[in-house]
């Protein structure tokens, strides 16, 4: 489960003042990372998770503006392809944002099926701008797709549609989990929420619920949807045999942005400086946790360095499919399986290096 644009301090166990009870329970059941490093924008982090490769190596080192060449080459070998080759049913629901064109969609990159959006979450607002001209810019739509066929567009993705999108993505994920479990088919689901990304709006059940504004309402809905997924896994009896990972793509954007009114309405990056699109820690650290009852110790909190790149080799190792990791290309991810399983005290990662666009920003 990947939450969009939330900050390190947005969960109550890391200082958030609005309770996130379902996330709190998740952390108590598994391992939480306080030094989990991502890239500073959506697309780079999402591509790093998919392949374990540095975004700069894949041409995904920044969010492409609409119309720019974008996305991972089909040659890239994603975690969905690896798990699919290993016999898993694979699905993506929600936000993708690592390839907007047919040929670079989730169903072209290892997912048996997907439903969601091909661009950034902000595309929901395009048609609400008074200047919008559909003769020069595409009207954003939802895309369902299945492996082996080009994805097609269905209904329009606009601000009202975005408000209920996470609820729908979660329902589709739950349906997939329930069905595959009944079939006793191993599965991999990637659930990409569009909360907490502008344009702002929540499912009607959460409008005004926090009495603290739309960001807090959003947080309540995110926590609720995460809980729905965990309940579905528990209900199907698969908890002990299901690895669940919750993380984010970059920091929150709620910090002073000199000279610009950003339209951001909330978010906390905890004690860290900066946020989204900066290379300060507030942009680079995101909440992250993993649950695998009986295999990963419950209630452990670590400040060891772990990165988005590491999920690919770590998951491959967890499911005994390390041999499928390609050797014909550099993989920047580090297999953290022994660290996560408690077989060693330290992470094998000693540094992170981050490019923003084509420029190395920090190490």
């Amino acid at each position: 489960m990947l939450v969009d644009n939330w900050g390190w301090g947005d969960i109550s166990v890391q200082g958030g003042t609005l309770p996130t009870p379902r996330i709190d329970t998740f952390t108590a059941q598994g391992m939480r990372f306080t030094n989990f490093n991502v890239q500073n924008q959506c697309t780079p982090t999402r591509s790093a998770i998919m392949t374990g490769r540095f975004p700069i190596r894949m041409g995904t080192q920044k969010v492409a503006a609409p119309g720019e060449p974008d996305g991972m080459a089909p040659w890239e070998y994603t975690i969905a392809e690896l798990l699919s080759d290993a016999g898993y049913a694979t699905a993506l629901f929600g936000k993708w944002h690592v390839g907007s064109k047919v040929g670079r969609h989730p169903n072209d990159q290892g997912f048996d099926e997907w439903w969601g959006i091909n661009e950034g979450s902000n595309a929901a607002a395009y048609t609400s701008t008074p200047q919008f001209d559909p003769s020069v810019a595409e009207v954003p739509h939802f895309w369902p797709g299945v492996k082996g066929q080009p994805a097609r567009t269905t209904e329009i993705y606009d601000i009202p549609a975005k408000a209920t999108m996470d609820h729908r993505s979660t329902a589709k994920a739950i349906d997939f989990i329930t069905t595959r479990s009944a079939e006793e088919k191993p599965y991999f689901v990637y659930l990409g929420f569009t909360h907490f990304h502008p344009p702002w709006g929540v499912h009607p059940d959460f409008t005004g619920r926090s009495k603290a504004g739309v960001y807090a309402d959003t947080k309540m809905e995110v926590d609720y949807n995460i809980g729905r997924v965990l309940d579905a896994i528990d209900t199907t009896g698969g908890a002990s045999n299901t690895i669940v990972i919750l993380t984010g793509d970059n920091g929150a954007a709620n910090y002073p942005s000199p000279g610009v009114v950003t339209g951001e309405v909330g978010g906390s990056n905890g004690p860290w400086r900066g946020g989204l699109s900066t290379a300060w820690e507030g942009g680079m650290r995101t909440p992250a946790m993993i649950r695998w009852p009986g295999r990963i110790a419950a209630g452990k909190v670590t400040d060891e360095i772990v990165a988005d790149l590491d999920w690919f080799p770590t998951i491959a190792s967890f499911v005994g499919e390390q041999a499928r990791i390609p050797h014909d290309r550099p993989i920047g991810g580090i297999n953290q399986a022994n660290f996560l399983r408690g077989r060693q005290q330290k992470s094998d990662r000693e540094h992170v290096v981050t490019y923003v666009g084509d420029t190395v920003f920090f190490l």
Partner: protein
Amino acid sequence: MKVHFATAEGTHSIVQRYTFPQVFDIREDVKESYELWGNEGYAHAWVMSPVTKLLVELQQSMARYPNVRPGQNFKGYDRTK
């Protein structure tokens, strides 16, 4: 320790590049507010030794495996060359 070669203050701000890299101790200085290289009489310049080594290794690897360009229809590295 953290070494910045460039920073941006916001999502829509300009990128700043530095004459000398900015060095911070992010374990003690979570706000990255006290730059060590310049403020401590250049005493922390040594930090560049491991940083430079890692970046040179990365650049050498990128020379061997050129980065895929955005949108490129890349089909694999020809290792016969």
